[in-house]
């Protein structure tokens, strides 16, 4: 059965041009980038060229730091834990305070919990039922010892986009020394982004969300910022991330961004129009469905809906049997559909949360895919509703 992949927010297939590049690197650049001989040099240059490209892609300054990691989660952990650890080393007597939102990815929330357990003060800012961040609450929660604020660019579950530019401008007005970090894992490669428009000190993302292979991530940090490493070992990545570099993954990530940059106008337009089409077809073909998250300020590729009278899990399994890949909230663990903390933060009732499902389209989604999917969702929903 042909598969229709509607879970691009979970991960994306590797772009064929990226794949070609990655295979060629694996074959032709076997050296350890830290080695002093020819194979090392050529691998080193490949990595440094990738770093240079990503720096310019992000609109960063020449002296800003680009650290290659294994994933978005690692980048985020390094940003948060690395910053706090450095601060605590320098300010032994002071307890730092850090702020984030209640709807972040577990990478941020659990790094916060980890720091909380080691004595760091934390605050989680709520959202309203449209998914908007309570900015006043955030600004009021800033204290003398607040050293970092982390707010995601776009939510992985609902696609809701936070106005991070405005948020961080306001934060910086209160105290410009507060470090502004953003988890841009769902943002980079889906939205036109440049650091010139966003007052960020640090940002994290990973390649596999924009058609590069899994296993490579980036942490950007502004010149002058200090972090402690969380992985100890060799001196790689300026001593901030030990471990032999993933040459092919890093270069693949740069290649994927290059492709995105080249085609972004066309691609973003297409995804926006397919996203609207998907949305319109869904809402015109089925009664009793509700959009979750912000109705306007959201990624156009992401549709998170709740379907009355249908359990997400049952719908997902049925759609899989029809060849459709979608998801409910974050990827689930051991089959346990943990109640989405993101939807819960919206104040939605239990049945709305338990009947939520997320579709996210991408580069290879076609009109025919969307038609097939809507048809399957409709038929499955009507069948399941008739069974109860």
């Amino acid at each position, binding site marked *: 059965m042909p598969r229709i992949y509607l879970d691009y927010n979970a991960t994306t297939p590797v772009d064929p041009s990226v794949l070609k590049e990655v295979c060629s690197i694996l074959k032709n650049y076997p050296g350890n980038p830290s080695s002093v001989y020819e194979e090392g040099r050529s691998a080193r240059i490949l990595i440094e060229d990738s770093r240079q490209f990503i720096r310019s892609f992000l609109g960063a300054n020449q002296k800003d730091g680009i650290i290659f990691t294994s994933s978005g989660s690692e980048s985020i952990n390094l940003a948060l834990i690395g910053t706090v650890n450095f601060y605590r080393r320098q300010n032994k007597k002071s307890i730092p305070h850090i702020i984030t939102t209640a709807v972040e990815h577990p990478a941020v929330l659990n790094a916060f919990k980890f720091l909380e357990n080691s004595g760091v003060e934390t605050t989680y800012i709520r959202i309203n039922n449209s998914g908007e961040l309570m900015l006043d609450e955030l600004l009021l929660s800033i204290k003398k010892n607040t050293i970092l604020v982390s707010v995601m660019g776009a939510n992985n579950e609902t696609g809701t986009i936070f106005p991070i530019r405005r948020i961080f401008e306001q934060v910086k007005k209160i105290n410009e020394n507060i470090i502004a970090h953003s988890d841009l894992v769902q943002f980079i490669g889906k939205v036109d982004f440049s650091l010139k428009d966003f007052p960020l000190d640090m940002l994290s993302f990973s390649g596999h969300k924009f058609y590069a292979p899994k296993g490579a991530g980036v942490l950007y940090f502004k010149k002058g910022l200090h972090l402690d490493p969380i992985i100890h070992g060799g001196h790689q990545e300026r001593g901030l991330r030990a471990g032999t570099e993933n040459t092919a993954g890093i270069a693949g990530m740069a290649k994927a961004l290059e492709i995105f940059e080249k085609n972004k106008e066309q691609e973003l337009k297409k995804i926006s129009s397919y996203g609207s089409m998907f949305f319109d077809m869904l809402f015109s073909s089925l009664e009793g469905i509700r959009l979750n998250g912000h109705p306007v300020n959201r990624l156009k590729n992401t549709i998170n809906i709740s379907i009355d009278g249908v359990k997400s*899990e*049952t719908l997902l*399994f*049925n759609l*899989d*049997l*029809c060849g459709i890949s979608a998801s409910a909230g974050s990827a689930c663990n*051991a*089959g*346990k*559909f943990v109640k989405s903390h993101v939807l819960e933060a919206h104040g939605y009732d239990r049945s709305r949360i338990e009947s939520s499902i997320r579709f996210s389209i991408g580069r290879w989604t076609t009109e025919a895919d969307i038609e*097939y999917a809507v*048809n*399957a969702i409709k*038929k*499955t929903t009507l*069948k*399941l509703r008739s*069974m109860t």
Partner: protein
Amino acid sequence: MIRLKNDKKTVAVAMSGGVDSSVSAIILKEKGYNVIGLSMHLLGLSPVNAEDNGTCCSMSDIIDAKRVCVRLGIPHFVINFEDEFKKNVIDSFTEEYLKGRTPNPCIACNKIMKFDILLKRATELGAGYFATGHYARITHNKNGQYFLLEAKDKSKDQSYVLYNLTQYTLKRIIFPVGSFYKKDIRKIAMDYGYGELSKKKDSVEICFTGSGNYHEFLSSRINGRLPEINRGHIKNTKDEIIGKHDGIFHYTVGQRKRLGISSKTPLYVTKINADTNDIYVGSLTECYGSKFYIKDFNIIAGEHIALLPKMDLSVKIRYSSPKYKCSAAVKNDKINVKFNKPAKFITPGQSAVLYSGMKVIGGGIIDEKL
């Protein structure tokens, strides 16, 4: 083409990760069914013991099931039933012990978890049939009446734990391994390239108590909650106090070890009185009984209820018990069972299952009241 109708040729196989359910999936796939693998996630795991080498339905077993499905090219879904399992199996297991009875949790697990909740999920996925790796067989007569039979491999027969099946469920169930010998099932696994699986040990212990010791499990769940239920007296059949105990839930009828009483002749638990918190012990001869009642019973073919007194019956009073010749009759909401010859260790809380030849007629829970 989107197929969404309940498809009679689609079968969902409950897969524990063991050899029997895995081979069930292989057999059904070979027979041309559209097969869907389903695994139940029943026990919560902390990150520390996430790689437990546990029993049925542990994390590593679920991965084993998934591996089989991926290699067979069939879908596999893991359904989390932690809450349902706790409520329907673990909690009632504990409650029964507190009442001085000796439950068999596999009975409730099969009745509720597999053949009710999971079967419903299978139906929602469009599966007209539902299969498990149980060793038992199903037949039906011309009138469309379904019957449950013992397995071909008598040494592996599991019909005892399946007496709660109904006409509705039997119509939908397939037991692919029931007409094979276990050694043949292992051979099929081997022949199909599942060498590891073919050597996997049978699960025999209660799956949720860990390390097979239910005393520790019960103590951890009970202690602190109801401290007053713990200590009590051990009495002989003349009602004389001859010892003390640390909680009736540590005892089961027929138990000989861990009584802590010295006696010239071996002593056995003959009765547990939850109301007075007393354990009664006696000699082996005092462990024999000639009749008992079954409550919460199920008779598989309705017509057998009236025919029961005229049938040539035998009864199993625990999973591994022999079949005792008996007579039985439904009386109000209970079945009155009389052994032809007295039998020992009639244990309240255990299930008694009535057979006529190799056919399972029905069964229920042994009541403490005579």
